[in-house]
Each structure stands twice: as C-alpha cells, then as structure tokens.
C-alpha cells in the first residue's frame, strides 16, 4: 500500500570486515517511494542497501553491483533465475535442459525491454559489461517483486541507455532504492535523494528541492 513503511532503520550502525562503515543511520522508506542513495565510493552505500535487503528479502528483487551472473549459462537461464522460487525443483531442472516455449516468450519480452532479445541464447559470459548489467536488470524485472534494490544498476551504460533502463525499473517495481553515481539520473528518476559521507547521512531531501550543485558539493561527481 502506498505510504506503508517498507524499510525502517533507527540509529543503525554496520561494519564490513570488522571495519565500521555506517554510523547512526535513521532512514524510513515508504511504499512507492523512489530513493536514490549517493556518495563517494566507500561512503557506505552498498552496506546500507545490504541492511535494507536483510529486512525483507522475500519482497525484494536485487540488482547487485557486480552483475553476479552465472557466466557459462545462457542469458535466458540467467533471467529465468529471477523466478526459481515460483516453480518446482523438477520444473527448474527441466528448464535447465529444455525450456518450455512459454517461458522463452516471457523472458524474451523482458529482454526486449532492455534491448537484449537478440542475445537470449548466448552465454552470459560472452556479453559486454553493459550487456551483462542489462541482463542483471532483466533478471530483477522478471523476478517482479514489488521492491527493487539496485546497487549502481546502470553504471556500465551510457546516460540515454541508463535512463531507459531506470524507466523500465520504475514501471515494474513499486518501491525502489538505488545506489547511483550520476546526479542527473538521481534528480530525474528519484523523488528522494539520500547522500552518505564517511558512513553518515548528510542529505535526505525530496529531489525537487535539490539542484545538481547541491549534490556535487557533497560528493564531487561529474556535472
């Protein structure tokens, strides 16, 4: 439901490999919000996304930072993996060897929305970095759970392609939390921007109240 609390952190701290990364974070995300998390690398964005994911893994489709594909498998199988939990083990094993036509049609449609339908039966490992990232996005789109958490899901794409992919994600998923490094993407596609600096939250504002310069001052991305 719009407005319900989806994620809630109060005074959250977290470490990575024994090193403290996040300090005293308060963050509430409500249903249908589109939140962009920004900050220099090492600011704690991925750790924050990890904390959120851990709160309700059953409702989240994930686009991890490294595309995390199974490279020897085809693009089709990598995307199908987004719905392994919805089918029986036997059906999944059968799909590994001989996919049903209806699954291929479904997956092809998702791939078409990110411009990859031509690669459907190629090995994921043979794709370029940008294509692998779009495959990872397609897996999350196909998964279709209401909340999307994405860690730099368009970092390997140019700005036009990136905007296109972000629009697809917004169409498909109700609530979105994305780590982004492109200020223009953040201002255009998110309705709320959170900026982290050295593990602390320094900005948490609706994006309409922010300008590119407000953000650049804090994290020094390129205009």
């Amino acid at each position, binding site marked *: 439901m719009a407005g319900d609390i989806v994620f809630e952190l109060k005074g959250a701290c977290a470490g990575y490999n024994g090193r403290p990364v996040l300090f005293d974070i308060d963050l509430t995300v409500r249903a249908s919000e589109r939140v962009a998390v920004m900050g220099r690398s090492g600011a704690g964005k991925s750790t924050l996304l990890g904390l959120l994911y851990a709160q309700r893994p059953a409702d989240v489709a994930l686009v*991890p930072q490294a595309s995390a594909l199974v490279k020897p498998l085809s693009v089709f199988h990598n995307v199908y993996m987004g719905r392994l939990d919805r089918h029986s083990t036997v059906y999944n094993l059968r799909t590994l060897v001989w996919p049903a036509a209806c699954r291929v049609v479904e997956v092809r449609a998702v791939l078409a929305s990110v411009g990859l339908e031509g690669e459907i039966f190629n090995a994921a490992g043979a794709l370029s970095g940008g294509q692998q990232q779009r495959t990872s996005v397609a897996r999350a789109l196909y998964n279709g759970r209401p909340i999307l958490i994405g860690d730099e899901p368009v970092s390997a794409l140019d700005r036009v392609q990136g905007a296109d992919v972000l629009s697809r994600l917004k169409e498909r998923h109700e609530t979105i939390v994305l780590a982004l490094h492109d200020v223009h993407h953040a201002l255009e596609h998110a309705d709320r921007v959170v900026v982290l600096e050295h593990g602390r939250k320094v900005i948490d504002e609706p994006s309409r109240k922010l300008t590119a310069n407000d953000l650049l001052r804090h994290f020094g991305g390129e205009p």
Partner: protein
Amino acid sequence: MNRLAFGNTSLLFLISALLCLAVADLAVTALNPWAEMARLARGILRPDVLSVEAWSVVWTVAFAVVGVGIGATAGFLLAIAFPHFTAVRVSAMVLRSIHELFWALLLIQVFGLGPATGVLAIAIPYAGIFAKVFAEMIEEADLAAVSVLPSGTSAISAFAFARLPEVAERFKTYTLYRLECGLRSTLVLGFVGLPTIGFHLEGYFKQGKYAEAAALLGVFYLLIGTRRLWARASTVPVLLIGSLLLLPEGVGGGSALANLVRFVTHDIVPAPLRNGDPGSLATWSAFAGWLQAIAWHQVVPGVCNTIVLAQIALVGMGILALVLFPLVSRQFVGRIGQPAGRVLLVVVRSTPEYMLAYLLLQLLGPSMLPAIIALAVHNGAIVGYLMGRHADALDYRADAPHGFNLYAYDTAPRLYGQFLAYSLYRWEIIVRESAIFGILGVATLGYYVDAAISELRLDVAMVLILATVGMCAVIDAVSRRLRRALRISALATRLADAPAV
C-alpha cells in the same frame, strides 16, 4: 623472502635421501643385465603388431570407462556433502588412501576375478579422489549469483542454476583427464590377474617376449595419446554403454553376497577375536599380543623400507624434473624442440610406474633400485612437464639472458616455489606407490600385505592396509604444513591446474 627457507627445505630432503641411500639395498643382482637390455631394445625396434590381444585393449578401456564413470558419479554426490560432514571427508580420505591394487586384492576375495572387481577397484579409490577435487572446485568457483537468487529457491534448484554451471566445465575436463589415469590403473590391475593389457604384459616380460610387449604398449600409448579425440563429452554415452556391454565374464568366486558376508563377519575379524569370548580379558590380551606382533614384525620394517624407498625416489624425481623441464619449454628448446620434448615426457608419464618397476626388476634383479628408478622417472616426467608449462607462462624481460644463464638466474629461481609445491604434493603419492611396490618383492608395506593375502590372513592384511593409510595421512599432513610454512600452499598442485600454453 622465502629463498632461504626453500634452500633449507631442499637441503633437508637431500640429506634424508643420502642417509636413505646408505641403508638401501641397491644391488644389481641380474647376471647379465646388458644382454637383457639389448634384447629389450631389439624388441622395441621390431614390435610384433600382429600379436596384439585386441580384447585386452577393449577390456582395459571398458574397465577404465565404467570405473571412472562410477567413481566420478559417486565422487560428485560425495562432493556436495563434503564441506558439511566430517564423516564424508574422512571416508573420502580413507577410500583414496588405499591404492587400487590393494582394493583389487581385497575385492578378489569377494567377487573373484570378475568385472565387478576390476570396475570397483578403480571406482572406489577414484570416488574418494573425485569427492575431494570436485569439492575444492566448488569451493573455488564464482558464487556471486547464489546471493541474488530469490529467497525461497530450493537447494537443488540453487545448486543446479547458480553453482553447477560455474564448475561443470572444470568437472568435465578433470573427469576426462582422470580417464587417462584410469587407463593406467586398469593396465596395472592386469598384473594381479584381471584380463587387461597388464595381464599379457606381465607374461611377455617374464618370458622376454619384448617384441610382443612393445606392440601392446604401443597400442596403449596410442590410446592415451589420442584420448582427447575419442573421450569427449559427446562420446561419453557411447563409451559408457559400449563398455558396460563389453565387460568380460567373471571367473569363479561363487556367490558374491555370501563371500561379502564371510569377508566382513569372518575374514577380516582379527583372529584372536574370531573364536574368543569377547567378554573375557584373555581374548583381549591375545588380541593385543597379536596386534603388537604385527606392528613389530611387519608394520615397523615395512614403514621403514617404504620411507627409505620413497625419500630416494622423491629426490631423484626432483633432480630429474629440474633437469628435464627446459626440454618442454619453448624458451629453452624453441618451437621445434618443445613438441619433441613433450612427446618424450608424455610417453614416460603414460608409462605406469608399476609396470616400469616390474620390467626393471626383470632386467636388473630384485632390489630397491628398479622401484626407485621407476618412481623417479615417472614422477620426474610429470613434474618436469608441468614446470615446462609454467616456464613458458612466465613473462621474461626483453633483454633476458639465454640458455643456462636464463635457467639459473631467472627461470629456476622464479619457479622454485612452484617446483616445491609440486614435489611436496607428490611426496604422499610416491610414498603410497612405494608401499604398493612391495607386491613386486621389495620389503615395503605392500610386500607384507601381499604375503598376508596369499596366506589368506585377511585380518592381518587389513591391519597392514590401515597402517598404510595412517602413514600416508601423516605424510600428507606434514606436506601440507610444510607448504603452508613455505607460503606455497596456494600454488597449483594438480595436473589440470597448470597453465595451458
């Protein structure tokens, strides 16, 4: 940083080998070894191709294919449980520590000289090896995709989609490579009576029919050399089904089930316990005395001889490998010399060390010498071949020296850690093989095992086999600690891991 430690380790092994040389029996007792060797050379030059026993070749392939197939399947299942259960790790260790020849000698008691003996003698130890190697491959694989799977995915689906595809290619390569080892093992099983190539070779060597032996061995090298052509993923179903259909008939043995029951409940039960009253103290004190006698008169001398043989062979292997590896490196012998060197080392490596030891025993007479030469040459060729591949994978600076200077100042120092990693890894393999060579008459542990089995004292044989397992486990542990202390435990040790050049 490690140079000093590398040097000291090498020196220690060298000294131990020299001490062992002082006590080892290295006599050449044959009356006229040169004349026999001349006959061998004539036989090799004029192989008698028409005498080749085609069925022995077919059966060698069939035993190897079915044995490795069952071993790989069982090993795969064990590998999944491997990281989770100590019991699985320990049983895999025990299975692979018992040599296939020991397995064969034990299995003959149950199944006679039948197909089950041949297949299981390969399948059982190989299952232990496959379990360990597959588990290591799964552990090393890229598992990033596992964390992205939707929650609620079943364990089997997760394994099939996110883990298996990452390792399937390595599993395949390793299994097909293991088939090559399986062919060697199967050949050797012929020496204890199974109808494989080794069965005929034993006869030929004994009678000095070297032309016939050369032809049969030539066919074997051809099989190994062309393995990549006939053993591929696409031919596996044909190979498996064909092999199952073509396995030979068994010879005698009676009911396998009755034999197995007798074997487990009677034969391998220690003699003092078999008839004694398990409640009485006298039974157990008799058992202790029985065990002590075996330990003192068989295990101790057997272990000492095994270690003496193994240390000399290990150092011999090391020296040979260091001398031989430039022969297979483009950097040293060029694009023309390298393939020739490779063919030489692959042929030597394909020669089963057991068979080589048997042949040398016929030529030189009984002593430790044949076994030492066989182990040093076989393992030296393996390590030399691998080192050559590493030598070509190195980046050399543009103005690097050439020839001996390059070897002494660049290649050998840079590869010395890798050399020690391979050598220490093969230490345990050489000790296990040394124990086995007892079957040929050298007084290592295998000699006592063979004697106990031929006297039908299987309970004694079991104790001795378990002692062999313990000895190998100790050597393996020492080797691991040494490799960790030398900081070379992350380097390649398996044949399949050497860089492809």
